[in-house]
């Protein structure tokens, strides 16, 4: 509250970019709530949260990777790969197949995280182009499993979507599921995992590797290991999203995750996660994902004809990604005569 000279100053939090993000979110929320009369009705809120959940989970994973100094261009296709594995192995009449699907999905999750992490951490490839290459691998694998959309979902797996949609569920859980979609619990679980990680040495190391890999290495941090763990956490959160989506849609498609890649990067950037790495807050990135989701809702409400929606949302994503960099560029141009710097 008080700065070093003893005078009163604003709490540090209000000066951060995170504060601006939350203010923007609240403004947009109130606009959308005003436009959509029944926004705070229980069923509307439920639908809103359901439609936001995959993006929020992907954004949390993406933020961890970006903070660790990488970027994941493959998270959308990884999502559809896991979805295809889940829905292709499950057969509705055989509940046991759900466990096999879950096991296979966990194996795929570890494989995806390891390959991305090894490419970036161990082989030191540029993260963007390396994950761009792997994204095509996941897309190809997903198409190999499921050339056309389809598949099934066992009944108990739908617990990842809503407890109430499972037949033989205890009454108490069914009641809870009627109010809160499981997506909320998945997000809370993801938050808990990141909270635990960020309180340990590992969390510090992730930030350290992101801000400067060489200096972190010189100080004895195992940079390769840290980046692999960051990518593994990312693919774990992507798996949560896949479990949620297979319960929701009860089918899989190889192309469903692709548009989410750009969206989750944009969400992370909007939430103040610096693409250069080492700066940002994973919890605030949830708000970033909510902002990007609200934007598509606003486009929907603003009577733009459906043909134009791809253009407008693409434009907004571009502006969202560019906004912080443009502001910084303008700031530095005002502050001093430009000195050329290489990155």
């Amino acid at each position, binding site marked *: 509250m008080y700065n070093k000279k003893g005078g009163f100053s604003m709490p540090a939090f209000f000066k951060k970019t995170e504060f601006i993000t939350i203010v923007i979110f609240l403004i947009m929320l109130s606009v959308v709530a005003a436009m959509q009369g029944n926004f705070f009705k229980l069923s509307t809120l439920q639908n809103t949260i359901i439609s936001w959940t995959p993006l929020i989970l992907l954004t949390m994973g993406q933020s961890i990777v970006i903070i660790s100094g990488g970027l994941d261009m493959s998270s959308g296709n990884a999502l559809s790969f896991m979805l295809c594995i889940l829905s292709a192995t499950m057969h509705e009449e055989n509940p046991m197949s759900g466990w096999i699907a879950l096991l296979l999905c966990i194996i795929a999750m570890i494989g995806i995280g390891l390959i991305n992490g090894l490419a970036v951490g161990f082989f030191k490839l540029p993260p963007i182009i390396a994950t761009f290459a792997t994204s095509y691998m996941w897309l190809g694998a997903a198409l190999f499993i499921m050339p056309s959309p389809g598949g099934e979902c066992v009944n108990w797996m739908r617990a990842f979507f809503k407890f109430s949609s499972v037949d033989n569920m205890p009454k108490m859980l069914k009641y809870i599921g009627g109010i809160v979609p499981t997506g909320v619990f998945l997000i809370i679980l993801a938050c808990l995992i990141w909270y635990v990680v960020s309180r340990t040495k590992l969390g510090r190391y992730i930030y350290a590797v992101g801000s400067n890999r060489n200096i972190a290495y010189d100080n004895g941090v195992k940079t390769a290991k840290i980046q692999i763990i960051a990518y593994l956490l990312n693919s774990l959160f992507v798996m949560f999203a896949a479990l949620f989506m297979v319960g929701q849609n009860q089918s899989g498609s190889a192309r469903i995750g692709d548009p989410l890649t750009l969206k989750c990067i944009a969400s992370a950037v909007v939430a103040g996660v610096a693409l250069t790495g080492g700066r940002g807050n994973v919890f605030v990135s949830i708000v970033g994902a909510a902002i990007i989701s609200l934007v598509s809702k606003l486009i929907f409400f603003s009577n733009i004809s459906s043909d134009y*929606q*791809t253009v407008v949302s693409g434009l907004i994503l571009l502006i969202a990604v*560019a906004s912080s960099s443009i502001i910084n560029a303008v700031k530095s141009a005002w502050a001093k005569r430009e000195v050329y710097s*290489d990155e």
Partner: protein
Amino acid sequence: MNKILNYLKENSKITLCTILIALLFIIGNLITGGNFSSLGSTIKFASFTAIFGLGQMLIICTGGDIDLSVGYCATIVSCITAGMMDGKNNNIWRAIIFAIIVGILVGLINGLLTVYTKLPSLVVTLAMSQILQGLVDVYSAGNSIGGKPSPILSVIAAKNTGVFPNIFFLLIIIIIGVMWLLNKTKISIQLVSCGSNAMAAHLSGIKVKKVRVLSFVACDVIAALMGLLLLGNLGLAFKDMASSYVMPSIAAVVIGGLSIKGGQKNYIGVVLGAIVLQTLTNLFVSLGWGDSGKYLGYGLILLLMLIVYVREKVSR
């Protein structure tokens, strides 16, 4: 003999590409029992990839950037010019001018955003390609995509002269032009020095940012003109028609042995890389794996080549 060995050592990556092509061709012939796809069609589609790859090579060379919007840049040009030309040779100039304007606009936006805001080029151009895709949707929603390419374009892009497709001769002209441009003129020094050491280039008086933006413009103009050729090849325009060339055009540059971090130029390598990829695609098609095998193969070979080429320069 020694001279030959030395030459091979100096151009190890080109040699590797040639060996890869030969190997893939032999494997393909063994698997299919002698009727692996014809040389003509391989060269034809490889030429398309290679010309797209020229644009990617320019921006990768000047700063390690990558353009994902080339596919939709070509698509939007071919969708709109198909109606413009309507099968007449007289209207081709209008189409070419339109393509160049679209290319310059897209390239300027991509380049300015990437260079001046220091955003990752992949993210900017991914958003750009989504915008262009949206514009194609808007255009095709209003009036269905119709029209034909003018006959000249069909002759250049689709017809054969003897065994070789005509596009191959165009590629040879482009190769000679690019070789002259990149070996005999001042441009090559500017391009390479921007990529290999931007600071040194800046201090020696090269306008680094301008060169990088211009390379983006060149890349997208090439992509837009490729839209015309693709239209000539297929005879009609549709959504998504060029998006399958995006990944191969990038992979061709990497397989051709150029550093993804910039500062290297070697168009022959890119052309050979494109032929490798096309042979690989033919192999997957003859195995009956179709799209899935193609994407998986592109991803795998790009990742492996990156590991092989980038690894040797990393000290730690």
